[in-house]
């Protein structure tokens, strides 16, 4: 049943003995086998490990040991996160046969929580894209409408959760890659504060922007996954040191007195009218629940996307230089080393990745550094100060996540700039490091509409509180794609 497919409900069933983790995992695998041919969310199948991990959890339960909230509940991991002994392809020919000899820190943390993963999920190659159409291996379909994209780059993770193939998933977000697919798939997706989740073992796209985060059905599940993966890591120099929090404590159904800012610039032209209506309704909901709504101006927002599409490719051009056929990954033989490099990289990378490498190389090259890269870093400062100012006045900002609902597969593939423009509402949080999350706020033609909530750095609690209150009070927003229902 739809209701059953959340972590917190299933956890109750596990601890009360209503179902075992192995039974649960098998049911999910059966459902996955049934719908995966239509959705194509996964790049690898990890059922043997999953059943092994599930059996270990059952053993713990049988022995009367307490288990974590996430223990034994089938999830999925984006294929740019390294798991020891498993493939980490980044949906690229370049890494088709790469096996990681080490675990990402989030995986170590999930292991401590006795996680079960059914496999690695599809994505835009090296997380570059907004539709998952840039995968070298397959196109993932939106479970709400199979003709539509699930969003990207964590489209496989979002589709896996929306289709009910997995209860939860990890994604990564460099410019909206968790929040946008969550929006297109009617899910909760959070990009935590930069530095809250270790990036060690996340195959880098743009190091100063990347952040791992949860994609779940509801806000409670989001808090549970966040609890499992958050925390300082000495292997990541940008990891923030702070005391461990229990994010479940933030799940409070009350926004009275909460100041919610509405930045004017996010509601400018370009925002679909039905999406606007849904967002206005959401604002209304908050008002009725006792929140204070404040209109704001953030004058530098309109420059955010341009700055982002300079900084992200610049870092990517350097991060992806290591894929050269020498130490790991694809090699296409050449007459000499330079020839081998060129052949390997030309064959191993898809068009979008190459485009961004070229773009990034250009904006860093001598003569252009100051006009593009350095200027973009200064714009980044201005965007940051806009947010600092805004978040001095309010606790949370409410914006669209994407200007519209999911688009048709193939619709934007020939127009990279049009594709980039879809990221306009999400990228500034990556530039500033601020936490943001998507939550469904309506539907248009059978597709979910998302809204984005934004809070101060390390204030995920306020984000969760605002989202949770909304979720608890808008029971009209509980639609699910039909294929999602798992009989338990």
């Amino acid at each position, binding site marked *: 049943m739809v209701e059953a497919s959340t972590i917190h409900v299933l956890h109750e069933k596990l601890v009360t003995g209503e179902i075992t983790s192995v039974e649960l995992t098998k049911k999910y695998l059966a459902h996955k086998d049934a719908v995966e041919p239509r959705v194509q969310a996964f790049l690898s199948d990890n059922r043997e490990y999953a059943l092994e991990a599930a059996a270990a959890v059952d053993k713990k339960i049988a022995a009367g040991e307490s288990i974590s909230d996430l223990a034994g509940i089938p999830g999925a991991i984006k294929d740019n996160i390294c798991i020891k002994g498993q493939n980490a392809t980044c949906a690229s020919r370049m890494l088709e046969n790469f*096996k990681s*000899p080490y675990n990402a820190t989030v995986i170590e943390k999930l292991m401590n929580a006795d996680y079960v993963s059914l496999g690695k999920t599809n994505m835009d190659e090296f997380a570059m894209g907004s539709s998952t159409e840039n995968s070298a291996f397959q196109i993932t379909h939106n479970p709400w409408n199979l003709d539509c994209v699930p969003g990207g780059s964590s489209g496989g993770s979002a589709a896996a959760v929306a289709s009910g193939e997995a209860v939860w998933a990890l994604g990564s977000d460099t410019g909206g890659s968790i929040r946008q697919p969550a929006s297109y798939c009617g899910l909760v997706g959070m990009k935590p504060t930069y*530095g809250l989740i270790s990036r060690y073992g996340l195959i880098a796209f743009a190091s*100063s*922007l990347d952040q791992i985060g949860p994609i779940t059905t509801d806000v409670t599940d989001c808090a549970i996954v966040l609890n499992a993966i958050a925390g300082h890591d*000495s292997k990541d120099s*940008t*990891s*923030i040191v702070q005391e461990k929090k229990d994010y479940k404590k933030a799940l409070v159904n009350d926004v009275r007195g909460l100041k919610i800012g509405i930045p004017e610039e996010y509601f400018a032209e370009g925002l679909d009218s039905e999406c606007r209506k849904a967002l206005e309704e959401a604002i209304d909901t908050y008002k009725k629940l006792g929140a204070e709504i404040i209109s704001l101006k953030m004058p530098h927002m*309109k*420059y955010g996307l*341009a*700055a982002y*599409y*300079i900084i992200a490719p610049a870092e990517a051009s350097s991060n992806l*230089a290591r894929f*050269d*056929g*020498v*130490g*790991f*990954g694809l*090699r296409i033989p050449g*007459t*000499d*080393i*330079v*020839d*081998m*490099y*060129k*052949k390997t*990289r*030309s064959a191993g*990378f898809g068009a979008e990745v190459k*485009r961004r*490498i*070229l*773009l990034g*190389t*250009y*904006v860093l*090259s001598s003569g252009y550094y100051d*006009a593009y890269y*350095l*200027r*973009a*870093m*200064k*714009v*980044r*400062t*201005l965007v*940051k100060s806009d947010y600092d100012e805004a978040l001095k006045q309010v606790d949370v900002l409410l914006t669209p996540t994407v200007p519209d609902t999911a688009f048709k597969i193939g619709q934007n593939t020939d127009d*990279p*700039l049009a594709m*980039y423009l879809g990221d306009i509402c999400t990228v500034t949080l990556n*530039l*500033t*490091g601020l936490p943001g999350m998507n939550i469904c706020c309506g539907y248009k033609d059978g597709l979910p509409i998302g809204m984005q909530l934004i809070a101060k750095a390390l204030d995920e609690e306020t984000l969760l509180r605002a989202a949770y209150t909304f979720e608890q009070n808008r029971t009209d927003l509980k639609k699910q794609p039909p294929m999602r229902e798992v009989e338990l």
Partner: protein
Amino acid sequence: MKISAEEIKKIALLSRLEIQDNQIDSVGKQLNDILTYMDLISQVDISDVEPTGHAVSMRNVMREDVPQPSLANEKALQNAPEQENGYFKVPKVIQD
């Protein structure tokens, strides 16, 4: 055009990517569209603005000088496309 064919060839070499002559126009057009959009930031007054390179304002994250185990040679070479005698093996090395 903001970017010339010569510049495209130069950045292709710098990034070790092959671009066929017949692709230069289409690649150039896409990059040009994107760069034209980027020009938006040339309107921003950035005088006296310091650049931001990091989303976090931390300083001095360091580790102690204490050895940690390394990988065994086989593990280190596990993903190597070509190896010999414990080394990674590459074709003839030339300068560009």
